[in-house]
C-alpha cells in the first residue's frame, strides 16, 4: 500500500494519538500545557477532590495575566477576588511542582506571548491552555487550541485530552500585501469573508506567499484570530523564519538535540497532493486596512468602506440591527471620521514588539489627540524591555503616551482597564463582543497602525495617509 498523502495537521495529530475510541473522540497526548489564574483554580480543586496528582508537572507552565493590574505591579493586588485567584495559582503550582512565572517575574506576561518568546512553543507539538487564543502557537506548526476547565483537569491528571478529530481547511492568500497592510488586516479580512462560524469544526492551515513572507509575530497574530471564525486552531508550516526565531531561546533545544529537532521540523508540511475538506483562496491585493463596525469579529470592512446594510451583510436581520444599535451606528455610514474615545494596543493578538514598532511608526513626531485615553500594554516584560531598548519608549513619551505593564488588560477587562459604557475604543485585541472591554463598551477592532492613527487624530483614520506624510517629512 502506498503511503497516503497527508496534511501538516494530520502529521502532528496522528503522532499524538494514544488511543482512538470507536464512535468517540481520539485520546491525544499533550506536549505543552499552559495555565493561568482564571481557568485553573476549579481544575486544581477537582484534582484535590478526586485525590489525583499532576502526571507530568514539567510539561505544564503557569503565568498570571488575565486579571492582573497593568500599573503598580509591585504593590499588592487591590481587588480581593483577583488577589485570591493569583494566590491560588501560586499555591497550586507550588504544591504540584509546576513552573510559575507570576506577577513580578521578569519572564511574566501574556501566556501566548511568553510561550513562544521563551522557546517553550516548538513545531510539531500539541499545546493546550484554558484560553481560546491558544491557537496563537499554531504559528510554529504546532496543534494548539483552547480548552475548558474540565479539560484542564484532564490534562493535569493524565497529560491527555479527548477530542474528536476536526476537519481540515486550507486558507491560501497569495500575492503581496500592500503598503500599510498588516497581519491583523489579513486576519480580519479572512474572518469578514468566512463569518464567525465559517470555520467551526475545522482546523485551519494558512498557506501561500503572504504567510511565507510574514514574520513569526505576524503569523502569531493570524493564528491567534483563527478562533474568531470558529476554528479550533490555525497553523503555518514551519520554515527558516520559524527556525531562526526559535534558535537560541531559553528552552529551545541546543547542540545535537537542535539538529535532530530541525531535521524533524523540516518534514512538517502538507504533502503536495494532500486533500483538505475545505479550501479558500484570497488575493493579497484585495486587502486594505480593516476595522470592525459591529459586535462580532466577522463584522469587519475595509477602512474606506461604509457599513453594509443588513441585506448586504447577510445573516439574520434582527441580530444585525441589534449589533448596530449597540454600537450606535447606522447602515451605510462611512467608518472614516468616526469619533474615538479610547485606544488600546496590546493583547495576545497584537502585544508583541513588531506591533509597538508599527504603532510608533505612526505616532513618531505627532501628539496624542487631547480627548483620547490610550492604554499601551506590552504583552510581556521581555516586550517591555525591547520597547525601551529600541527607543520606542521615547517616541511614545514624546507623543504623550504612557507605557503600562504587561497583561491581558482591556482585551477582556477583568482588571481595572475597562472602557466606560457608550465609549468607542479602537482596539488591537481580538473581540468586539458587547461589553467585552467593559459593560456597555463599544469596540472597533483594528491593527496597531489603525489604532495609532486614531490615537493621534482622535477619529477613525486611514493610517496610510499619516505614513505618507511621515515619509515626506523624513525624505
Amino acid at each position, binding site marked *: 500500500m502506498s503511503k497516503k498523502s497527508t496534511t501538516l495537521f494530520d502529521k502532528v495529530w496522528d*503522532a499524538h494519538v*494514544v*488511543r482512538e475510541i*470507536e*464512535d*468517540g*473522540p481520539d*485520546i491525544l*497526548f499533550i*506536549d505543552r500545557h499552559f495555565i493561568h489564574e*482564571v*481557568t485553573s*483554580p*476549579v481544575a486544581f*480543586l477537582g484534582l484535590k*477532590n*478526586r485525590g*489525583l496528582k499532576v*502526571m507530568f508537572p514539567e*510539561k505544564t507552565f503557569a503565568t498570571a495575566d488575565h*486579571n492582573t493590574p497593568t500599573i503598580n505591579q509591585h504593590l499588592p493586588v487591590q*481587588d480581593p*477576588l483577583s488577589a485570591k485567584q493569583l494566590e*491560588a495559582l501560586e499555591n497550586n503550582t507550588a504544591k504540584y511542582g509546576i513552573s510559575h512565572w507570576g506577577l513580578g517575574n521578569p519572564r511574566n506576561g501574556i501566556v501566548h506571548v511568553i510561550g513562544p518568546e521563551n522557546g517553550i512553543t*516548538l513545531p510539531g507539538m500539541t499545546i493546550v491552555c*484554558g*484560553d*481560546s487564543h*491558544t491557537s496563537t502557537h499554531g504559528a510554529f506548526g504546532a496543534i494548539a487550541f*483552547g*480548552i*475548558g*476547565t*474540565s*479539560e484542564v*483537569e*484532564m490534562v493535569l*491528571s493524565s497529560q*491527555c485530552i*479527548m*477530542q*474528536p478529530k*476536526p476537519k481540515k481547511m486550507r486558507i491560501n492568500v497569495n500575492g503581496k500585501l500592500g503598503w500599510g497592510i498588516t497581519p491583523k488586516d489579513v486576519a480580519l479580512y479572512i474572518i469578514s469573508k468566512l463569518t464567525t*462560524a465559517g470555520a*467551526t*469544526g475545522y482546523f485551519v492551515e494558512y498557506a501561500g506567499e503572504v504567510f511565507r513572507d510574514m514574520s513569526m509575530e505576524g503569523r502569531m497574530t493570524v493564528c491567534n484570530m483563527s478562533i474568531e471564525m*470558529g476554528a479550533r486552531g490555525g497553523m503555518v508550516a514551519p520554515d527558516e523564519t520559524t527556525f531562526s526565531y526559535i534558535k537560541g531561546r531559553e528552552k529551545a533545544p541546543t547542540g545535537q538535540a537542535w539538529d535532530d529537532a530541525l531535521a524533524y521540523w523540516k518534514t512538517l508540511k502538507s504533502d503536495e497532493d494532500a486533500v483538505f475538506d475545505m479550501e479558500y483562496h484570497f488575493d493579497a491585493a484585495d486587502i486594505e486596512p480593516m476595522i470592525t463596525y459591529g459586535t*462580532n469579529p466577522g463584522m469587519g470592512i475595509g477602512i474606506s468602506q461604509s457599513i453594509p446594510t443588513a441585506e448586504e451583510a447577510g*445573516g439574520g436581520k434582527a441580530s444585525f440591527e*441589534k449589533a448596530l444599535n449597540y454600537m450606535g451606528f447606522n447602515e451605510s455610514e462611512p467608518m472614516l471620521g468616526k469619533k474615538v474615545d479610547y485606544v488600546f494596543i496590546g493583547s495576545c493578538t497584537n502585544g508583541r514588539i513588531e506591533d509597538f514598532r508599527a504603532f510608533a511608526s505612526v505616532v513618531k513626531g505627532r501628539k496624542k489627540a487631547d480627548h483620547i485615553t490610550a492604554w499601551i500594554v506590552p504583552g510581556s516584560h521581555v516586550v517591555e524591555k525591547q520597547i525601551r531598548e529600541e527607543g520606542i519608549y521615547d517616541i511614545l513619551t514624546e507623543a504623550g503616551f504612557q507605557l503600562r505593564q504587561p497583561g491581558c488588560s482591556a482585551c*477582556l*477587562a*477583568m482588571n481595572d482597564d475597562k472602557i466606560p*459604557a457608550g465609549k468607542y475604543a479602537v482596539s488591537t485585541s481580538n*473581540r468586539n*463582543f458587547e*461589553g*467585552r472591554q467593559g*459593560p*456597555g463598551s463599544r469596540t472597533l477592532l483594528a491593527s496597531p497602525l489603525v489604532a495609532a492613527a486614531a490615537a493621534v487624530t482622535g477619529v477613525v483614520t486611514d493610517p496610510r495617509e499619516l505614513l505618507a506624510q511621515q515619509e515626506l517629512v523624513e525624505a
Partner: protein
Amino acid sequence: MAYDKFTLLKSTAVPLPIENVDTDQIIPARFLKATERKGFGDNLFRDWRYDGDGNPKADFVLNDPTYSGKILVAGKNFGSGSSREHAAWAIYDYGFRCVVSSFFADIFKNNSLNVGILPVQVSPEFLDKLFQAIIANPGTELEVSLPDQLIRIVDTNESESFEINSYKKHNLMNGFDDIDYLQAMKEDIFAFAEKSRY
C-alpha cells in the same frame, strides 16, 4: 465534578432567538474571578438580564415570567468566543439541562458535554418551528430523548433526530466523565510518554 445523569427530559423551554450568542454574553469576564464552581447561574446573561444598577431588564426573556423550563432554545452559532467553561456552568447552575440551536461553537459544545448539559443541534427549519411553537404557546412542552437521539414537540408530535457520538452519549446517560476513563488507561499514557519527542 459530578452531574445529573441525562436520559429523558420533558420540559417547557425558554426562547432566545438571537444569533452568535458569545460566551462573553453568557457570562461576562468580570464574573470569572471565583476559585470555586458555585453561584454562576446568578450572573447568567448578566448584562442582558440586568441594568448597570442591578435591576432586571423587563424585556429580557429570563425576566419574563411567561417563559420557564429546563431547555434553552437559541439562535445559530451559540457559544462562540472564549473557552470559559464558566459559560456552561452558568447555564447548568441556572437550571438548564439542554440547549437547542441550529449550530454550536466547538469549545462550548465540548464544555457542555463535560458538565452534563446536552447540546442538541437541529436543522434551521426545525429551530424556526420550535421558536414559533414556544412563542405562540409558552406552555409548549418539548421532549428530549437521549437514548433515541430525538427531540419532539409534545403537542404536535413533530420531531427531529440529533447527532451525538456513542461515547459521549454513554457518559451522559451514566453520569461518567472523561477523567474516569483516562485514569483507567494511565499505563498506556506512561508508555506513550516514554516515546514522546517533547
